[in-house]
Structures are given as C-alpha cells and as structure tokens.
C-alpha cells in the first residue's frame, strides 16, 4: 500500500482547496469532509499541504542516508 499524506480530520474546515489542486484523485470531498484514498499515482507533489491553511494535511519526508 502506498504511503499517503497524513490527514488530521480535527483541523479540517472542509474548504475543499486540497481537492482542487490534487492531480492524482487521492483526495475526495464527502459531506464537507476530506477523505484520502490510497492511490499509486500520488507523486508527493505536496500541493495539498501547501494550500491547506489549517495544517490538516501533511506530507512528511523521511530523511534517509544513501547506502552508497
């Protein structure tokens, strides 16, 4: 299952802006509430995090040291 952005329902005000910018269809609006669907096509563009004014969406990066 692909890792997806983290959604905090308590912070979401239902503005829907994240849904308008997402290019992979992972974010859907249901009854003034956002739901995240696990999709392989989410390229971690982080636009949903960028436009969310309440901090309800987070796209954290794991910081990894290269093996080589």
């Amino acid at each position, binding site marked *: 299952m692909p*890792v997806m952005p983290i959604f905090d329902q308590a912070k979401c005000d239902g*503005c829907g*802006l994240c*849904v*308008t*910018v*997402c*290019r992979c269809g992972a974010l859907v609006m249901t009854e003034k509430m956002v739901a995240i669907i696990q999709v392989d096509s989410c*390229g*971690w563009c*982080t*636009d949903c*995090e*960028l*436009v969310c*004014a309440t*901090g309800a969406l*987070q*796209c*954290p*990066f*794991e*910081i*990894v*040291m*290269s093996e*080589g």
Partner: protein
Amino acid sequence: MSITIENLAKLRHFAGVENDRLAGLPQLFNQKPFVKGQTIVSEGDKQENLYFVNAGVVKIFKTSSEGKEQIIIIVRPGESFNDIAVFGSGYSPYSAQALGNIVIYWIHKNDLLPFMEKNWKVARNALAIVSEQERMLLTLIEDLSFKNVTGRVAKILLQNSEPGPDGFQKLTQYEMAAMAGTAREVVGRSLKSLEENGVISLERHRIVIKNKELLTQLAGLN
C-alpha cells in the same frame, strides 16, 4: 452565474463595507474559470485588472533567467493579486497560475479607482492589503539574500538523518521552514537547489542524502 453583491462582500477589499455602497459594483466585475496549470498573468505583462480568487488557489511566482521558479505566495479565495500593477506601473512583476480548476473575478483599474475615491473603507482595505504584501515581500527578500537558508536546511537534514527508535525521522516542509526560521516556499527552493546539485534526491516521500560530505560543508559543520 452572475456576480452578486454577496459574492463581492466576501472579497477582502470590500470587507466591512455596507452592502448598499456596493450597489452597481457587480456590473463592473468580470469572471472566468481557469483550468489547472493555466496562466492568468505573466511576469512583465501590461495588466491593469485587479484579480480576486473566488474558488480554488492561485500560485504567484517569479522565474529566473535559468527557468528556476520561486513561489512568492499562494492566493486563496477572497484574496487578490496583481495589486502592485494596478496601483503602480500597470506591469505585473510576477506570474500567476491556477493550481487547480479555479474561478477568478476581476475589475479594471479604471473602474476600481473612481469607486475607491468615493469609498474610503475600500481604499483603506486596499492600502492595508498592499502594506501586508510589501511586508511579506521584504521578509522573503531578507530570507533569500541575508539568511543562508540552504545551509540551514542542509543542517536540519543532517541532524535528522539518524533513524530513531521508530524508524526514519520525518519532517514536512512547514516543519523545516519553522526550524530554519523561514517560509515554506523558501525551503522548497532550497531542497530543489540541493537536488539540482546532486547533494540529495527527492524520491516521493523520501529525501535521500547522496553526498554527505558536501551537505556537511553547506551546513557549515566541518
């Protein structure tokens, strides 16, 4: 759908203005939908319209001669852009692009200015907004020219590269910005430049440190 006084009352420039004073204003406005990725304003264009986002989000950015992009601000519903051109030279100093499918309202300077002359509250709101934008731009200049943000981001990456008991450490761009004392937009640019120089690679939800030595140097830690 036609623009109503209620629609306009939600725009920041008209906040606190009595509805009867806004009579006649909807007729001076235009609206248009834009699709994701579409350019609304290009840097250097003669543009004398004041634009407002009604639905969706607009990205305001500048592009360097090498094609590097610096996001300046994200404009959300009710907020405006192109104020600098409208109240100044008429030339847009930045580009504006639809981040998703959006609806934009606009009014031409020649219609707006006479209205502002008769409505002090609107003029006062416009001044407050331009002043806020100027403050934001000054902070951005300060961050880009005086703070070594890339160095700070390099240090943050190094300091968080050791896995903890729960696995790899994780940071969002907002968290890195807060740690580096800057805006998320500036962190985004630093990460991109580190990637372009082969110091890190961005692999979906992972930042892979490829050249620890160079990153350490950039962080000023050696």
